[in-house]
C-alpha cells in the first residue's frame, strides 16, 4: 500500500488508473493497471513469505494490495529476520536515471524472532503510526521536485547474504542517486519490526542557486 501511495502521489501513474478504497481511516489507492498489479502482486507475495511483511500492521497493508490469498513458496525472509531493507526507485523511462529513491530500513527484534517473545503494542497505536507515514508520503509532494517526464519504478530488497533467492528476482546494482537530497520520514515500530523511511532525490538544479 505504501508503494501504491507513493506512485499516486508522485504522479508516476495517471490518477485515473487508481481506484480509491477506504482503509485505516485514510483513503487508500489501488491501481487498476494490470501490469502494475501483477508486478506488485508478485513482489508483495514474495516479500510476504508467510504473509508477514515488515510487521503485523504493514503486512496487512501489503497483503490488501497483493490481490492474492496465497503465499509464494520461497524463503520467509522477513519472518527469519533476514530482510534488511526494501527500496523503491523511480527512474526516468527515457534515460533510466534514478530520480527518486524510497528506502525502508527494517530492524528486526531478534528476541521476537528467535525466542518468540512478544511485545505489547495495541493495533490502534500501530494504525496511528501507519497513518502518520501515509500522511507524510502524501505531503511529500510539496517539497519533492516534480516528476514531469514518464517514469518507471522498481523495487529492491536487501537481504542477508545467506538467503536463497527465488528465481523471479535478479541481482541488481543499488541504483543510487549521485549527490542526492535526502529527507527522513517518521519511523514506525510494531511488535516485531522497526521501519525507518528515507527519501533521497535528485538535486533540483534550481536548488543550487
Amino acid at each position, binding site marked *: 500500500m505504501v508503494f501504491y501511495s507513493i506512485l499516486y502521489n508522485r504522479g508516476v501513474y495517471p490518477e485515473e488508473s487508481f481506484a480509491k478504497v477506504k482503509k485505516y481511516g485514510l483513503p487508500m489507492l489501488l491501481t487498476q493497471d494490470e501490469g502494475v498489479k501483477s508486478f506488485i502482486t508478485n513482489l508483495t507475495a514474495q516479500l510476504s513469505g*508467510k504473509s508477514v511483511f515488515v510487521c*503485523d500492521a504493514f503486512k496487512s497493508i501489503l*497483503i490488501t494490495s497483493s490481490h492474492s490469498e496465497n503465499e509464494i513458496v520461497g524463503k520467509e525472509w522477513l519472518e527469519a529476520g533476514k530482510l534488511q531493507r526494501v527500496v523503491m526507485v523511480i527512474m526516468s523511462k527515457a534515460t533510466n536515471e534514478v530520480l527518486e529513491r524510497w528506502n525502508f530500513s527494517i530492524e528486526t527484534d531478534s528476541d521476537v524472532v528467535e525466542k518468540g517473545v512478544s511485545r505489547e503494542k495495541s493495533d490502534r497505536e500501530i494504525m496511528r503510526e501507519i497513518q502518520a507515514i501515509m500522511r507524510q508520503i502524501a505531503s511529500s509532494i510539496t517539497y519533492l521536485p516534480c516528476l514531469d517526464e514518464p517514469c518507471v519504478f522498481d523495487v529492491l530488497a536487501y537481504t542477508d547474504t545467506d538467503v536463497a533467492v527465488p528465481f523471479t528476482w535478479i541481482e541488481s546494482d543499488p541504483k543510487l542517486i549521485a549527490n542526492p537530497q535526502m529527507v527522513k520520514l517518521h519511523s514506525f515500530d510494531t511488535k516485531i519490526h522497526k521501519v525507518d523511511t528515507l527519501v533521497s532525490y535528485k538535486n533540483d538544479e534550481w536548488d543550487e542557486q
Partner: protein
Amino acid sequence: MWVQGEKRVLDAPRLRNDYYSNIMSWGINNILAVALGPELYLWNSEDQAVHKLLQVRGGNDWPTSVTWSEDASTLAVGYMCSNLQLWDVESSKLIRSLQGHSGRIASTAWNGHILTSGSRDKSIINHDVRAANSLASCIKRHADEVCGLKWSTEGNRLASGGNENLLYIWEASKMSSSKFLHRLSDHCAAVKALAWCPYQNNVLASGGGLSDGCIKIWNTEKGICINNIETKAQICGLEWNRHHKEILSGHGYSITENQNKLCLWRYPSMTKVGELGNHKSRIINLCQSPDGITVISAGADETLRFWDVFGPPTAGAGNSMVSDLQGLLSFRTSLLR
C-alpha cells in the same frame, strides 16, 4: 467456551497450499475424495480403506477441484490445465472430459444433472452432463477467478464468489452473462467460502479472504446483508450445522486472531460458541460428512483433521453418548445447544 480435540487425523502428504482450490468432497456414499498434489485418493469412512483413483503425470497439471454429484454416482474433477473430468468411482473409470474453460477450474458445484464450473478464466459454465454437447451456458460476469460456487438446496439459486471480491446470486432459470439476481460487493477480499442455510430458504453465508475476514449472512431474496461478523482472519470455508442452529468457519492467515482455527458461531445471533484448532498452518478447505456430524479441515500442514463438532443430533442424550463426547471439556455446553 469449550475446546474440543479432533477425533481423527489423516496424513495428507503433498496437499497443495493453495487457497483457491477446493480439493475435498465427502459423498453420500460415505467416501471422501481428496486430491493430494497430482493424485486423487478415495477414503471410505466406513472401513477406512484408501484407494487411489487417479494420478496426473508430467508435473504441470493437478486436480484443483473435486465434487461428488448429489447421488455420489459421479465424481467431478477440475484441473489446473482447465480440463474437467467426470469419473465413475465404482469402476474407477473416466466417463468423459468436458471442454470449455481456458484456465484452471478451482470451483465446481452440482445441481442434479447440471455441473457448474468456475475458472481462472473468469467464466462460469453450466454443463448438462447427459447431453452430447454438454455446454448449456457460459456466464462471463466475474472480473477475476471464480473461486466459490454453491447451488442452493432447492437448486433454484447459484451463489458465485470471485477473486475480485464480488458475490453474485443467479436464478437457475434465468442465468446469462448479463442477468444476475444480485451483485453483492460488500466483501473486501476474495469470496471463496459459501454455504446456503439448511433451515431458512434463500439465506446464504459468505466468507471473505485475508483483507476482509467477514462472515456475511444474506437474504438472497432481497439482496441485503442481514448480519456481519468480523473474524479478523482469512476464511476458507463455511459449514452449517444441520442439527443445531450454528455455523462453522475455517480460517487461514490472520494478523490478529483466529489464525488456522475453526470457529463455531450460534445462529442467528452469531455469538461465538467455541473454537477448535490444532493445525500448524493455515486451513485450506472444509467439508462435512453426509450425516452432518463430522467436519473435516484440510490444512497446509498436510493433515486432514476430523471434528465431531456438529453432533449429536439430539441434545441431552444419556450415558451411551458419553464416549462420543469425551473430547469435550464442558459436557454441559452441548445440552444447552
